């Protein structure tokens, strides 16, 4: 198809440029805002040229904001720490639970196997509040409200189905012959699983883990309902921050930048796997 005319090339170029502007401008603009003082942010018309300042980030990192009215405490770094802790713990737990289960579903045809697999997948699609609202009452009785343990447990709702279904697809695509041969050579099942199956599925496990991390990080509603300020991740913390200090726009922008940087960096790093992971393996990337 070499008959693309110059006109068509130009039109394509313009359209792609428009697409890039629409999808990247908001990120670009928030990054610019995060390096501005409130004064330059409030300037009309908005300007691309200003004296950059890192005061917003300084205020967030030191945890105090000096304003004319006095010092304002910002707990945002705590939110960032919570996000890291919750997402990491949730992904590790769901890898430990999900990878063996995925292997079982891929390698064995067993009674109730598909039923169990579909029950686990259906968590991905049910309205989260359906489970969360009664859970908030139970958690109160069990003393799990506002604990990391309770939150990490609930995070399994999004992490487990993802890991289970992506890793299962990977195991299914690997021929079981190597494992059979290794077993016949006299090795135990456990050793075969550890030495053969897991290393072969490693790209799938890594991809699923990264995606689960991103989804856990981006989750909003679990912590909104089950956590108070000191355990909240960035998604909820940023909203609370906006409500609490509604006019510190520079700091709000800086907080958003700090909150989205980890997932965006991971996404760029792992982009090869994203397509397959996002569609639960329905489409090959």
């Amino acid at each position, binding site marked *: 198809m070499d008959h693309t005319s110059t006109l068509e090339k130009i039109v394509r170029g313009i359209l792609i440029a428009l697409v890039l502007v629409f999808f990247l401008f908001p990120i670009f603009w928030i990054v610019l805002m995060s390096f501005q003082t409130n004064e330059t942010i409030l300037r009309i018309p908005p300007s691309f040229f200003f004296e950059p300042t890192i005061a917003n980030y300084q205020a967030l990192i030191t945890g105090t904001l000096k304003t004319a009215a006095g010092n304002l405490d910002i707990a945002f770094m705590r939110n960032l720490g919570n996000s890291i802790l919750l997402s990491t713990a949730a992904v590790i737990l769901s890898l430990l639970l999900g990878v063996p289960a995925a292997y079982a579903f891929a390698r064995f045809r067993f009674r109730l196997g598909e039923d169990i*697999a579909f029950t686990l997948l259906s968590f991905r699609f049910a*309205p989260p509040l359906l489970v969360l609202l009664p859970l908030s009452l139970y958690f109160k009785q069990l003393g799990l409200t506002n604990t990391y343990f309770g939150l990490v447990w609930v995070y399994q709702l999004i992490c487990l189905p993802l890991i289970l279904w992506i890793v299962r697809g990977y195991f299914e695509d690997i021929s079981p012959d190597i494992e059979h041969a290794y077993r016949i050579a006299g090795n135990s099942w456990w050793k075969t699983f550890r030495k053969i199956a897991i290393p072969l599925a490693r790209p799938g496990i890594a991809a699923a883990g990264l995606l689960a991390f991103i989804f856990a990080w981006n989750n909003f509603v679990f912590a909104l309902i089950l956590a108070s300020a000191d355990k909240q991740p960035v998604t909820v913390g940023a909203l609370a921050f906006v409500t609490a200090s509604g006019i510190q726009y520079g700091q709000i922008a800086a907080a958003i930048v700090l909150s989205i940087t980890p997932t*965006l960096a991971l996404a760029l790093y792992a982009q090869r796997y994203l397509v397959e992971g996002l569609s639960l393996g329905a489409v090959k990337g």
Partner: protein
Amino acid sequence: MTTAAQARPRARRLNWGRALPYVLSLPALVVCIGILIPFFTSLYYSMLRFRLNLPALKGFIWFDNYIGFLSDAAFWKTVQISLTYAFLTVGIELVFGLGIALLLQKPTRFNNIVSILLLLPLMTAPALAALMWKLMTNPNFGILSYFVGLLGFTNFKWASDPSTALLTVTLVDVWVYTPFIMILLLAGLRSLPKAPFEAAALDGVPRSFVFFRITLPMLMPYMITAVLFRLLDSIQQFDIIYSMTQGGPGDTLLVFQVRAYLEFFQYTNVGRSAALLIILWAITYFLSHLFIKQWLKLRERTHGRA
């Protein structure tokens, strides 16, 4: 085959082998059972008169919460706004996603870089994306408010005006999720067999004809999968709407989950909140069934060929 024959004499091994899949998958299930219980609790609550502030009135009322909805204008408003939101966002995302996928179809280095960059909005937490757009649409200094001002719309209030609130949250949803549809359709487009297109080019078939008679029909399974998946998510949208407007202004954006949240925490009416969520669950259950069927078919096709 040989392994089974060899294993037969060793009866203990075989028993262990039969239990193995359960041993492997049960921990995952057990962790989730704690989460299955609340589901049934919700079902039970939905048949209770249950208000946290009036515990004395608690009682079993069968389907009265549901029957109450039938004559409740607020409930029908929620159904209407949820469906409008879901179809509007997914419709726009499908058109844009398909358009962008077609633009980037050729697997050149430049196109690949563009498609990777377009993943960034999708990887932004929707709740944070809503805050970003809230800053950009701030009436005092928001860059978008400034732009529409230049176009002659002074006093354009975005999410704080009932007549433009839906438009604003739709814009955020489109920003976040169009890349999802784009990326699926791009993978679909690039995996289509080349032969029909080469034949059409040889025969000098017009390109609009190729698009409507070859590309679209062949891409249809991918489009259906992507659209079902997005509808399933979009009808449950909470993060974007809640962080942008908390369901307001007034009752403009009270979609299912936002209304259920407010019923629970603001009006402490647990029974009504649960009934709303059960209705939403029934809708998503139906959609997820369609989706899983479609998804398995597609998965078989792409993996079978690979």
